[in-house]
């Protein structure tokens, strides 16, 4: 490859130009701009005039009960989705990783929700969750459970959203876990078998530790993804953040402030808060990951 020279730098930037142009204009510049907007106190959107700068937007967020609610809901959502999804997908991946027929078929089936439009499947789920005519309540009714107002009762809106999200994202995690499992050399299992470890022990003493990098990756991706939930809510609750804002998440909050109220300063500030939360969480995860990921 040789050392960088003026010529090689020039050539390289020719190759990079298209991607860099797009990314600079539509990613890097907006990141900076967004930070600036979040400090606009008084802004005329139409004429692009800033009358006053300051931290009003952040103060507003600090005092806005809706933002607090959005934060709370987002955390509940993440806590509801991520562990559940990881455990379920790990279990399914392990079952799929056994020597069974139809493995490819199962894998395909579990992955299908991932490739389908959130909007389209949310519409189906909206109906599945219907209090009177939904199949879910029909099934529960067979077991003597009273109809649950999945989408109109603030208590149940979040669980409904969580169910939908787990269902949607399961396939992706399964694929990654499967790949992780296949990377574990069979010899470890043979050795452990010879050493007399039972299947359960083999799982806890070989699979779990050797899979830890994968688990780590999956959890980072899931957490970040879950923090950004929006489409599901919009489609599931018909353009509302759930009954009594019970499914108002941070991104939904940003969307409302931005597109409903045209309050760019607050929306940007909220977006940056989200960014900072994700950033801190990622750092924490990296830190834990370094210490806990066994190899």
């Amino acid at each position, binding site marked *: 490859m040789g050392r960088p020279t003026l010529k090689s730098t020039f050539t390289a930037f020719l190759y990079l130009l298209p991607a860099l142009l797009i990314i600079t204009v539509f990613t890097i510049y907006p990141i900076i701009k967004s930070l600036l907007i979040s400090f606009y106190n008084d802004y005329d959107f139409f004429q692009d005039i800033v009358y006053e700068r300051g931290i009003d937007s952040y103060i507003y967020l600090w005092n806005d009960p809706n933002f607090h609610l959005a934060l709370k809901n987002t955390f509940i959502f993440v806590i509801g989705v991520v562990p559940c999804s990881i455990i379920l997908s790990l279990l399914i991946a392990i079952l799929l990783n056994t020597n069974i027929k139809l493995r490819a078929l199962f894998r395909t089936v579990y992955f299908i929700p991932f490739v389908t439009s959130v909007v389209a499947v949310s519409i189906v789920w909206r109906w599945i969750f219907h209090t009177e005519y939904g199949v879910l309540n029909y099934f529960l009714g067979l077991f003597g459970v009273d109809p649950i107002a999945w989408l109109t009762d603030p208590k149940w809106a979040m669980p409904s959203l969580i169910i939908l999200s787990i269902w949607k994202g399961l396939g992706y995690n399964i694929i990654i876990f499967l790949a992780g499992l296949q990377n574990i050399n069979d010899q470890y299992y043979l050795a452990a078998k010879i050493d007399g470890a039972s299947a359960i022990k083999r799982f806890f003493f070989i699979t779990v530790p050797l899979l830890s990098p*994968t688990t780590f990756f999956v959890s980072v991706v899931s957490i970040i993804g879950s923090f950004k939930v929006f489409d599901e809510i919009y489609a599931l609750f018909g353009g509302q953040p759930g009954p009594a804002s019970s499914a108002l998440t941070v991104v939904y909050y940003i969307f409302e402030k931005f597109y409903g109220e045209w309050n760019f300063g607050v929306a940007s500030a909220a977006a940056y808060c989200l960014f900072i939360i994700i950033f801190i969480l990622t750092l924490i995860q990296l830190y834990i990951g370094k210490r806990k990921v066994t190899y």
Partner: protein
Amino acid sequence: MIRDALSKATIYITLSLGGVLMLLPFIWMLLTSFKAGNEVMIMPPVWFPEKFHFENYKEAWEMAPFGRYLFNSITVTVLSTIGELITTILAAYAFSKMNFWGRDVLFAILLGTMMVPGEVLLIPNFVLLSDLGWIDQYEALIIPWTASVFAIFLLRQFFLSVPKDLSYAAKIDGCSDFRFLWTIMVPLAKPALFTIALLKAIGSWNAFLWPLIVTSSKEMRTLPVGLTAFSTEAGTVYELLMAASTMIILPMIILYIILQKYIIQGIAKAGIKG
């Protein structure tokens, strides 16, 4: 032996049950899309329509300009995928096989942007597109999405795994950098490129928030945005809604089933390497 058979049976049963749960919404969607209006909103639910009403599809198709939505979705998906492939191939090549000043810093900056949630970009991008006069134009739907740091990262990893000797050999064989990229690297990276293209296509086809915000006229809507609009209009006419939904998800399911090998491989690879 019996224990083995038993545990095997348990596995099959568990997996099948899970699979049915995964598919049930789709089955329900598909079956309902063929039902007559009076078979939809009733309790207990009717699973199979008495007669298959294929005309539901026609009706849904005519109720909203789905033809136009479909055209838009295909245009946007195809063009942004092609665009992303081109920018990604070029950039990943530069990052993996060239040495230039600022390479590592630049790459670190790009990776850093992956941490930023897309919502942060929404507002300035919207303002920017307004200034450019791209709102409600194909440009807005396509151009911002023709480059992806994630794709560059993925392909770079793949390119890095190609031995250097190959490029030296090609050089000695009289092949220029640019030609080497397209005649050797690109064919070699086919699996990675397929993955990138498919993930892109899926993402682009299903994208909702962005097209919702940057399109205004009916003529510019993509399928998901059109579908939500249709769902407000069609209200609770579920058989038509389901027909429309089926039309939207079917292309991606078919695409996925045909090319699933690449998607799964690619995701697995990207996942493992992090």
